[in-house]
């Protein structure tokens, strides 16, 4: 099941109808759930979902900084420094 989006409805029956209109008009769905937003409990903490048991934090491959550095350069307006050879 994947998150499709949200609907606004006074009750569950109408919510299902609206969901079919919005998210299955072209037969994209084979199964629909609607749930009241206040009944959703979420967990997004990577420490719990993807604990680093692979020990990647001990290896160079565990630190890919390219995107973060690009974001930092965009923020600072500074140039990328020359690569340091001989390391």
């Amino acid at each position, binding site marked *: 099941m994947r998150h499709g989006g949200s609907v606004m409805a006074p009750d569950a029956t109408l919510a299902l109808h609206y969901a079919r209109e919005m998210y299955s008009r072209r037969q994209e769905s084979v199964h629909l759930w609607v749930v009241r937003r206040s009944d959703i409990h979420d967990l997004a903490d990577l*420490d719990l979902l993807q604990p680093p048991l692979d020990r990647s934090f001990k290896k160079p491959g565990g630190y890919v900084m390219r995107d973060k550095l690009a974001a930092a350069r965009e923020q600072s307006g500074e140039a990328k420094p020359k690569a340091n050879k001989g390391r």
Partner: protein
Amino acid sequence: MTDPLALDPVLPARERSALPFNDDALDHDERYRHFEDHVTAGGKVEATDWMPDEYRIAVLRFVEMHANSELMGVLPEREWIMRAPTLRRKLALTAKVQDEVGHAQLLYRVAEDLGKPREAMIQDLLDGKTKFHNVFHYPTKSWADIGIIAWLVDAAAIVAQQALRDSSYAPYARTMKKICWEESVHIMHGRDVVVTMVTGTATQRASIQEALDRWWGPLMQMHGPRSDRAKDRDIHWKIKAKTSEELRQEFIGIYVPRIRELGLTIPDAALALDPATGVWAYDEPDWNELRTVVTNHGPKSQERLDFRRANWDATRWVRDAILGNPRAAVA
């Protein structure tokens, strides 16, 4: 990156004993001359070679200070293991501390072979008779300090340590190769912490800038005052190859652009590269501060030494049990 497990070939024992300074039939002065010729021509020295006392003591002091620094250097970082912001950072920091203590053990091992027992080295450290690097005498005020230390303090250290991979004392050179490989991951961890905070909230960015403002002075003092290459005995014996100024210039040249890349300001108005000479000008570091700190009068010197003293006392029963003679006790 070089294979960290690859060891340079060591001359087999027969060839080693054929080196002229290893000839017991020669008198001391002759052996000294042969030894000096060998080393100044780039020859390596093993733990089992004959060596003049001057060389042996110079290497011992150098490696002992390095070992002390690795052992004391974990204490500032250790302060933040229980306060790391995520599990991943906590594990990375714990692994780093573990690595550093391992480095201390490797280095005390190298130094022991030069004639000073490990217990004596630790006792001299605790008694304030030997030193450790200035940077480890300062407090940590926030998580930002951990990023700055793991990135820039380790970077300043690695600039020195990479040059030591070619030291004339081969056991030390081999150990430095292993240490440099491990340190390179520590530096990535530090840089990742800094870049994450710099691209985070305004509070995180300010926190990093404030930490940099405090650590820049000690960083600039870390490699030590300028010295005369011609008078430096450690350079004469090729124990080390670069002067403190060469190391400082190298550190500045590589890391200032990387610090500026993040939009951080370095608290040194005089810091500027002369494009004609390739030399960086900078505010003269406070050498009085360095002297005060490395003689164990820094803000955290005694507190951290006290921690080590307490630990040394508390673990005495373990050393006595393992190093003592259990058969004698039973009899």
